[in-house]
């Protein structure tokens, strides 16, 4: 049973090895508008463009560990995403409405502080509530969308695989994750970690953000294309100073979970707003929005 426990830890800790992210410069110039839907949450529109993306997950080729492939992804449509992480005050409104689980004691409730120590389920509950409340469709970003919006704040975690010496990769990953920016885990006011070229605030600060991407093991062919994949959606990708994989019901990853890794400081999130379909736009106009 202990072995099972350790295996589970190991699984949850499988390093996301994402790669060098040449971010297309044309991504900048994002249109920014805030609080248009009355939620008080500013939305940034990241212009359509490309991203060079190191795929999340674990990879094998011919029955051996393989490096994560680098893919070029085109976003045909602009991406509407929250400028800030969801604030603890906004999250608290969902708690007060009976739709979200209470924040842990110790989380400062303020309109300019992120909701932290939230699980993936908490983030989804909030997205569902906000969508019902506004008639818009909010959801967590995929890992690809997060990387696209993060631009230069997305760090490529690609690492070579040496099948003759697996320790090299572990040590390289450990050293990279240990290069944590100083400042500690205390939550700061919005804007403390700066704004990226797309107008998003506080990316890769000391709050890691949930994505909807499941932990997936890919089997690659010789050309590096995925020929089969097996997902474990009990573990989701979180993004921040480094990519990490966290079990979906965990609210506080700081205690570790990894026997020998460097865990995220805080878990928070921001949401993507789906473009409105004409049906929902009409429904909203007629004040018959869902929920």
């Amino acid at each position, binding site marked *: 049973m202990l072995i099972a*426990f*350790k295996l589970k830890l190991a699984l949850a800790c499988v390093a996301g090895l994402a790669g060098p992210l040449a971010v297309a410069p044309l991504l900048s110039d994002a249109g920014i508008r805030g609080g248009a839907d009355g939620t008080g949450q500013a939305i940034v529109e990241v212009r359509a463009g490309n991203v060079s993306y190191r795929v999340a997950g*674990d990879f*094998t080729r011919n*029955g*051996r*560990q393989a490096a994560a492939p680098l893919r070029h992804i085109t976003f045909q449509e602009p991406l509407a995403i929250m400028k800030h992480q969801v604030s603890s005050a906004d999250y608290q409104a969902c708690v007060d409405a009976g739709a979200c689980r209470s924040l842990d*004691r*110790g989380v400062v409730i303020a309109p300019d502080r992120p909701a932290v120590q939230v699980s993936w389920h908490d983030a989804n509950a909030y997205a569902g509530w906000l969508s019902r409340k506004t008639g818009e469709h909010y959801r967590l970003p995929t890992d690809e969308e997060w990387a696209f919006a993060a631009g230069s704040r997305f760090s490529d975690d690609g690492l070579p695989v040496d099948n*003759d*010496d*697996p*320790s*090299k990769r*572990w*040590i390289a990953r*450990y*050293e990279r*994750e*240990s*290069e*944590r920016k100083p400042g*500690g*885990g*205390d939550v700061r006011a919005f804007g403390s970690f700066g704004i990226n070229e797309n107008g998003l605030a506080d990316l890769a600060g000391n709050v890691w953000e949930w994505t909807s991407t499941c932990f997936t*093991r890919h*089997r690659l062919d010789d050309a590096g294309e995925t020929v*089969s994949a*097996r997902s474990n959606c009990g573990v989701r990708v979180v993004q921040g100073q480094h990519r990490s994989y966290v079990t979906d019901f965990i609210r506080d990853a*700081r*205690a*570790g*979970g990894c*026997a*020998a*890794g*460097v865990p995220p*400081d805080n878990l928070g999130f921001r949401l993507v707003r789906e473009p409105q379909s004409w049906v929902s736009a009409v429904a909203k106009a007629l004040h018959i929005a869902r929920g």
Partner: protein
Amino acid sequence: MLTRRAALLSAAAAALMLAVSAPAKAADDLKLPRQKVELVAPPFVHAHEQATKQGPKIIEFTLTVEEKKVVIDEKGTTFQAMTFNGSMPGPLMVVHEGDYVEVTLVNPASNSMPHNVDFHSATGALGGAELTLVNPGEQVTLRWKATRTGTFVYHCAPGGPMIPWHVVSGMAGAVMVLPREGLTDGKGKPVKYDRAYYIGEFDLYVPRDEKGNFKAYDSPGESYNDTVEVMKKLTPTHVVFNGKAGALTGKSALTSKVGETVLIVHSQANRDSRPHLIGGHGDHVWETGKFSNAPETGLETWFIRGGSAGAATYKFLQPGIYAYVTHNLIEAVELGATAHFKVEGKWNDDLMTQVKAPSEIPPAKTN
């Protein structure tokens, strides 16, 4: 607060009056060579000979008590620590059997409380505690003979309820008395090490407010009453190596190389612990820390009795990241008792290899 401090001081004054006053000795009565050792902060250990051909000496150390506010976890929880030389644990002092240990205990006037030191390795006067109680602004020098070999705890023991509180506030360290001929495996074969690390484990008891958040205090005295209530429940809020959860991880991870033998001294002055090196072993383990006993060999987990220090050697055979934990995994993962070793070197496929990477479970054969 002033009242409490006054009470603490008067309790100490009473203890001082009860303490036996020993006659001061001339500094050169032993006619032995003297050596002054500059102590270093754990997990490191000051340079020392593993075996010595020199005769006994008087080894001089200085311990300066420092009361200070420290941060004990990643969440920024603060703690009113009392320390020897500013670190939790206090520094490891290494001498050889037959040496005289001459310790000057300094209690600067900036401190708020009286302190002393009880050496488990010393004989008489409550380990020296009776002869070393000093008020803020005082210092004292104690000499004791290292008659027994091994790793031993030292800690502050200023009387009554002050004893456990000072200890779980950080005032504990260790002494290592090496046999003059060095360590052996109990069958006459020398046991040597390439580097030594000292890990001091502390169980900490931080009070919470009515909302359940950890409370912060401006002085040790102000934290006392609340802290004792938590202590008496015997359930620590933190179990940490070297003063803080994560103190020996990341950029501060312990380092070694494949082929190197590491000596790990582990002390716990108040509570039992079970060191375990995940992915490694204990080659030679003096679980009770006393070198006159033969070491156990090839251990998976060893036991450190509260109030003692143990020693283990391990030669790293495989590179990678190792976790050194107390194998109560709740304490290791949730309460903080995890350190990491980063070990460089060449992977040994014979010892371990991933024969087949994870993949789908093949369908059952139907014939």
